[in-house]
């Protein structure tokens, strides 16, 4: 299987439209057989990057390499990449089988070869029963699977997915996420996926590239990005986070001591450059890593406040707690055997450990530019 998987590399890819820079010097490489997701808000350049890989957009600068050889000048039909378009782009005048056979037909395969491969591809996505239907007679999820079969039937070097799940409703999306993950494992090919849905990126990918304003902000495994975001944008875009600003009082290998108003915070600072004493540092603290402290209970960091508002979500509560020194802090609390019954104005004490938060760069100014 690995033999069929290819490695992709982007070298300082830039694409300008007039004075607008859609993609700004993005370099990254995708190992053989990996599942890479390009994640970012709309306008972050993620789709332009995918279209550059596919050959529909010519980069202004930089190049695209497949297994080390430059494919930048090749037109899309010569790249041999499978692609699943947003909204699937199935040919409405062809049956499911004709859709799947299309890439084989334009490659001039014999009828027998075409039929065999089409049947195998439809089997792969469990749609063999629907071969003679028109795409319009299929549900959204089935159409999506036809698009996958069509993109995989000609053994493409790479599978490109442009928001493949965005047209589906919530329940179906979760289901097809699992299927897509299983399919990736089964065919063992390199997948490049584009999405703006953080849950999809986290649960599907081996590698996630976070983009904003055309720039690559951080690339890494899902857990790395969630637990050690490099910047405020990454922490905010991938899940919810609280941001705490403090003055660095001490900076040692064992950690930082931060001052925010009258509250002193202890913070581990694993690896990387540590901020100098006297500067301000920004911490990202996930709501689910904060606990409500019972009377007398202690934690490495603790702060008092009162509940400003709360929402019931079934499996949990989301509290917004107003604190004197740290502003509003969001806390996620499991609802099952919750230590308190949330009510507005209720006084609570929050606690978290020294390794719960992470220091992040503040790229909010760049973001607004």
């Amino acid at each position: 299987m690995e033999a069929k998987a290819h490695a992709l590399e982007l070298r300082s890819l830039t694409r300008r439209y007039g004075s607008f820079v859609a993609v700004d010097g993005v370099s990254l490489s995708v190992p053989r057989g990996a599942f890479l997701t390009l994640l970012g808000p709309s306008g972050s350049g993620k789709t332009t990057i995918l279209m550059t890989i596919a050959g529909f957009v010519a980069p202004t600068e930089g190049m695209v390499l497949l297994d080390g050889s430059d494919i930048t000048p090749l037109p899309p039909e010569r790249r041999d990449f499978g692609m699943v378009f947003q909204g699937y782009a199935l040919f409405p005048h062809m049956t499911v089988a004709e859709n799947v056979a299309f890439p084989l037909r334009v490659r001039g395969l014999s009828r027998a070869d075409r039929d065999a491969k089409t049947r195998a591809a439809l089997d792969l996505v469990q749609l063999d029963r629907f071969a003679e239907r028109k795409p319009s007679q299929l549900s959204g999820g089935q159409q999506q699977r036809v698009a996958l079969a069509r993109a995989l039937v000609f053994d493409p070097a790479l599978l490109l997915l442009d928001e493949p799940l965005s047209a589906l409703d919530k329940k179906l999306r979760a289901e097809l996420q699992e299927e897509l993950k299983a399919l990736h494992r089964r065919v063992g090919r390199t997948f490049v996926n584009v999405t703006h849905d953080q849950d999809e990126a986290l649960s599907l990918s081996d590698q996630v590239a976070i983009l904003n304003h055309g720039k690559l902000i951080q690339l890494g495994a899902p857990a790395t990005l969630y637990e050690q975001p490099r910047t405020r944008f990454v922490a905010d875009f991938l899940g919810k986070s609280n941001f705490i600003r403090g003055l660095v009082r001490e900076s040692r290998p064992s950690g930082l001591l931060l001052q925010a108003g009258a509250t002193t915070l202890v913070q581990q600072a694993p690896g990387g450059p540590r901020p100098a004493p006297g500067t301000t540092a920004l911490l990202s603290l996930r709501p689910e890593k904060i606990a409500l402290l019972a009377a007398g209970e202690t934690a490495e960091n603790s702060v008092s406040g009162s509940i400003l508002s709360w929402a019931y979500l079934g499996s949990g509560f989301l509290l917004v707690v107003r604190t004197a020194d740290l502003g509003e802090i969001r806390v996620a609390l499991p609802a099952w055997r919750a230590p308190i019954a949330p009510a507005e104005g209720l006084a609570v004490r929050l606690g978290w450990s020294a390794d719960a938060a992470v220091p992040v760069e503040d790229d909010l100014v760049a973001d607004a530019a």
Partner: protein
Amino acid sequence: MQRNSLGWWLLLLPAFLLMTVFYIAPILQVLTISVTEPELGFGNYERLLTNMGVQRVIGTTLRIGLITTGIALLLGYALAYVIALAEPRAQRWWLLCVLLPLWISVLVRAFAWVTLLRRQGLVNEGLQGLGLIDAPLPLVWNEFGIVVGMVHYMVPYAVLPILASMREIDPRLLAAARGLGASRRTAFLRVFLPLSAPGLVAAGVLVFIFSLGFYITPAILGGGKTLMAAEWIKLQILDIIRWGMGTMLATVMVVAILVTLGIFSRIIDLRRMFGARA
């Protein structure tokens, strides 16, 4: 919204009746005259089988109609394709250019073609000036002139339904075809052309039917030598005062048109022809 809907419809009933009478009555009247003048019976219709003149007129009308339709579809498809692929701003201008002639009286346009195509016209003098021809070509007062004038009139009507059909094509389908390995040409032939076919058929029906009933352009550019159905009807009624024969051919035309529409309405959405999607 549902309450009082009966009262609502009663209010509309007079309007409905009026429109029916207003629209249907004139047509029925024509049909009636064709079986009552000069005497009751289908005598006028028997002439269809016996009268060489009527048969020649019908033949000429069908031939010119088919040629016009063919050329108008070809030009219309090319124009619609250019417009569909153009930038939105450019599209606006192209469309305005295509629609502009529609605003100008068909009579004025017919005379314009006469002045261009006649023996001393711009085209013949230009070609002679360039030394390409020695004697002026007979470009007008024959079928060639009629076809030129009719194509000129019909191209906008061909462009509109074809363009509407092309606009319904998701541009991602072409990208998908390319991405799956099809060249530009294959993507056009296998995806774009079949998907724009309904517009092409609609345009064909529209242009062909319009051609059958055309009067001014053939009358002026044909110079009385090539007779098409509408002019023949006018001659029968106004000049020879044979109402029976004139209305007979008119009825045949109306029936032929309704039958054609009936057949094609099963295949295509008629509203497509006016670019109006319901």
